[in-house]
């Protein structure tokens, strides 16, 4: 997949670094055969120039402005607007990572796709163009860094080397110091730091420093605790995301989705990295790697959701929401539930059969503590992942231990039955 792939040992990374510094492949066409869909800013201009399209687009925006999307679906005018817009350039438009007017492009994209998406999709399609081949080189590069264990450097601390390399590059040094000093400046006894400013400084660092420096800092591979702790400290967790109480995953996601930039980066991350994340989890022996699809802008950093090393063990990595509350511009969610530890006997139950609420959207019947990605709220996502280290890092409303398997008995059917 795009994100991490096992490859024969390539030439030394530095050579790749230089080759990547060159311009992207010409012609904007990438080997996946993706037709060069126009970006949404351009598509919006094309639509505005065409009366039929611009009026329908206005209608759709009015339809979506209403609170309840479903009432919109019932409205014929909205449906008609939708149908026409499916034929317009707005329908297929995407955004380029780090383009000028990126935010405007994303706003246009979501204004269309909120109308098209069928209700709240769990994983949303990325608004960005598919990752180019040049990007996959960087992914490969990053996996090289992460998996690199040539004998000569096995002793050295890759993360320290990455910091040294950064300090020797004026741009990297300046922007690294920019976020470190912001994120470690204590405001008062009660206020550890300004998380908002810290997030902004981190986004600037990841946006303006080439991936060859940022990836080495973020995804350096480690063989010992000191190196792993240095790696964990890279984004100054004490300020950028750690909280006294674990935020609820779904709160975090809804905060992120309220912000077009964060929503886009999250969708981009899910689209490009979800596969490798699961793979990484299933084979912790190989230092797992999560790559963010584009070197610039860095889709994870600077938002409520970014991957990070959650503890200082050399291989464990997760995007579990507790790690996920990094540098978004959403509000901090403080919930007060305490984690229960008390097992209590239930009183006798009185027999009755009350009416059942129509929509059983019990959005929190999350049972499986082994799911350590974003806490799914759906029961259907049972134990897909094989058992790996339990990392229930955001409050999934249950810490149920469900390892009690029934004894293996043949269940013989009594004949008949409905």
């Amino acid at each position, binding site marked *: 997949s795009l994100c991490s792939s096992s490859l024969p040992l390539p030439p030394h990374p530095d050579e790749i670094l230089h080759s990547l510094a060159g311009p992207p492949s010409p012609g904007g066409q990438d080997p996946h055969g993706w037709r060069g869909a126009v970006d949404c800013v351009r598509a919006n201009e094309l639509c505005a120039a065409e009366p039929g399209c611009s009026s329908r687009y206005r209608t759709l925006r009015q339809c979506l402005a209403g609170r309840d999307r479903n009432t919109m679906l019932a409205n014929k005018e909205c449906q008609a607007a939708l149908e026409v817009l499916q034929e317009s350039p707005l329908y297929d438009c995407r955004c380029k990572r780090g383009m000028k007017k990126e935010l405007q492009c994303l706003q246009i994209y979501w204004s269309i796709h909120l109308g098209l998406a069928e209700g709240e999709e769990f994983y949303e399609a990325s608004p960005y163009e598919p990752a180019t081949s040049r990007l996959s080189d960087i992914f490969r590069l990053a996996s090289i860094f992460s998996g690199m264990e040539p004998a000569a450097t096995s002793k050295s601390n890759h993360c320290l080397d990455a910091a040294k390399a950064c300090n020797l590059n004026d741009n990297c040094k300046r922007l690294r110091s920019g976020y470190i000093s912001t994120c470690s400046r204590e405001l008062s006894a009660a206020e550890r730091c300004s998380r908002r400013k810290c997030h902004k400084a981190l986004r600037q660092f990841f946006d303006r420093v080439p991936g060859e420096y940022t990836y080495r800092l973020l995804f350096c591979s480690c063989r010992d605790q000191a190196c792993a702790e240095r790696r964990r400290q890279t984004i100054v967790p004490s300020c950028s995301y750690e909280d006294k109480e674990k935020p609820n995953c779904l709160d975090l996601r809804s905060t992120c989705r309220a912000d077009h930039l964060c929503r886009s980066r999250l969708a981009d991350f899910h689209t490009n990295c979800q596969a490798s994340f699961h793979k990484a989890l299933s084979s912790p022996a190989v230092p797992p790697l999560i790559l963010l699809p584009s070197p610039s802008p860095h889709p994870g950093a600077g938002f409520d959701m970014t991957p990070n090393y959650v503890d200082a063990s050399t291989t464990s990595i997760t995007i579990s929401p507790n790690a996920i509350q990094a540098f978004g511009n959403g509000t901090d969610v403080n919930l007060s539930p305490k984690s229960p530890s008390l097992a209590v*006997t239930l009183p006798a139950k009185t027999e009755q059969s009350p009416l059942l609420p129509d929509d059983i959207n019990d959005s929190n019947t999350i049972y499986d503590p082994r799911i350590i990605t974003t806490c799914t709220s759906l029961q259907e*996502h*049972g134990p897909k992942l094989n058992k790996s280290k339990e990392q229930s890092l955001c409050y999934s*409303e249950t810490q149920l231990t469900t390892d*009690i398997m029934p004894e293996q008995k043949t269940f013989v059917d009594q004949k008949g*039955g*409905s």
Partner: protein
Amino acid sequence: GLYFPRKEYSENVYIDQPAGTPLLHIHALKDSHGEVAHFHLCQNLVISRARSHENHWFQIREKTGLLHLSKSLDREDFNMLSVGNLMQLSKVMLYVFLSPHPFQEKECDSATRTTVFLSLINASAPVCSSLTARQLCFTEMDLSFHIKENKPPGTFHQLQLPSVHHLCQNLSISYKLLAAEGLPFRYNENTTGVSVTQRLDREERERYELITKCTVRDGFREMQVEVPFLVNVLDEDDSPPFLPNGTDTADAVVEFNRKEGTVLATLTVYDADTTPIYPLESSRKKYTGIIITDDPWISETFRVEHVFDEIHFSPNGSQVRGTRHEYKLVLNKSISVTDHRSFQLDVLVNDTEFHGPERSVMLHFNVSILPVSIQFPNMTYQFSVNRNAERFAQIGKICIENCMKFRGVNITYKLLSPNISCYPVSILQGREDKYGSLYVNDSSVLSRPECKEIQYTIQATDKQSRKHAKTLLTIVLEGTLLKKEEDCPDSCAQSKHHAECEECGGLGVLTGRCQWRQGSGKGITTNYSTCTPSIKTCPDGICDVVESKEPSVCPQDCTSGNIIGGHGKGTGNLGIKSGHGICYCFPKQNCYCEKDDIKEQLCDDMC
């Protein structure tokens, strides 16, 4: 009403599979006896990039829920239904709707629905011999279902794969459901249907883990494969609130802590049902806690805060989740020191979604508000002050009785001027401080022989009630005057060495001379060496009210300027929390922390 046991289904569809090929068997469960399920496909086919297309290929039997191909899918159809042109696989979505009666068109928008993900594969269906046991027995879908508690029994899944059963008739595929004894599930070998045999009670058990074992026989060859079969029980609000050990009463005493927001007492209510943590507010509104009173003073002065979290009940060995609700009685505003009364305050807790009897519980708080007195402990204050003390020297602290326990009580201290012209001492009070700090405000008085013993009256006043108390303060001047050293800096902190430090005085000194604090000298440490007016108060990590009045008194605690050399800043970026070697400061300018071990003669002018 009727509901689906899954939120989504998935199956593969290959090119050129003949019309009529069965794909999926979707089941529905009843909400009440007598309901009959009608299945229906309403809308278009949704292509993965949210593009929709009219559905010509798939239909579902209204009565049985069997999804099947109504028209074969050829290569052209495939390209039409996929996003890119080089794709080998395209995912489309279908919505299956459910109704207790035959469908009318407009019903599609509101009816219950489940999603079917169909992976269209640009290749013809694999021959049976090429399929593994796993592919013959189970699809990609994991066998995980949800069943509502308290609902009638019914069949919710068919293990046999319709398409495999249709294509591979020469194979014998049989299933078994392995489960512990007495579980409420039954497997019908003829139909391969799995059914729940009785009403479930989530408060008894909320999850069942079975195993499905499939055996494939092809001539002499036999293959077996097992996969988990999970059933989660969906909760409904069928349990009333109850009191854990019957405690519905708690004492709430208000004495020294009279500040708004103070939690006076907490009472706990349990509920065997679960409570979603998200969205938080709607869950909170579900379980109300209202103060029952018609006394406006009580409703203004108190409020109830409700937090809940998950606990586990363990009926007969299995573990199920429930909810613990905590109701805290909180002061809604600060209470005057003069207020005192006792009364019982009742809070009605109500589980708004539980429709049976005993849906509410009454909690009782025995509230007693005690008066507190503003008085000095029965003593007078006496402090001796060295005549060589300099301005801002800290003499001592003044505090009424229990002053450190007070919260939400604003006591201010004042010195009433004495009758004679000697007036060297003043009092200051930090914003958060509960005491007054006495300090030398005019050191010139200390050297006047006529001023020996000065009497003040101290007055402490509570801002809100205006109640106040007085006591006597005696300041005794002692010690012989020392000769003032030439060329001494204003601030002790400016001295870099032990000798020059203790030769000089400086603002805040108690005895006319600065004090040298010798540090441990190892790395960057809070125990750095420095010259200070008083080791007791500076540096102590707190830029106190006296020190903050004049930067030269204790820059080590109060500087917000540049600190050069290895250091760590103090709380709120104020002061030097830790330093390397000796820390010294040029007030209102930089501070420095450096080791003093470089003896080499620095290349100066003539070098």
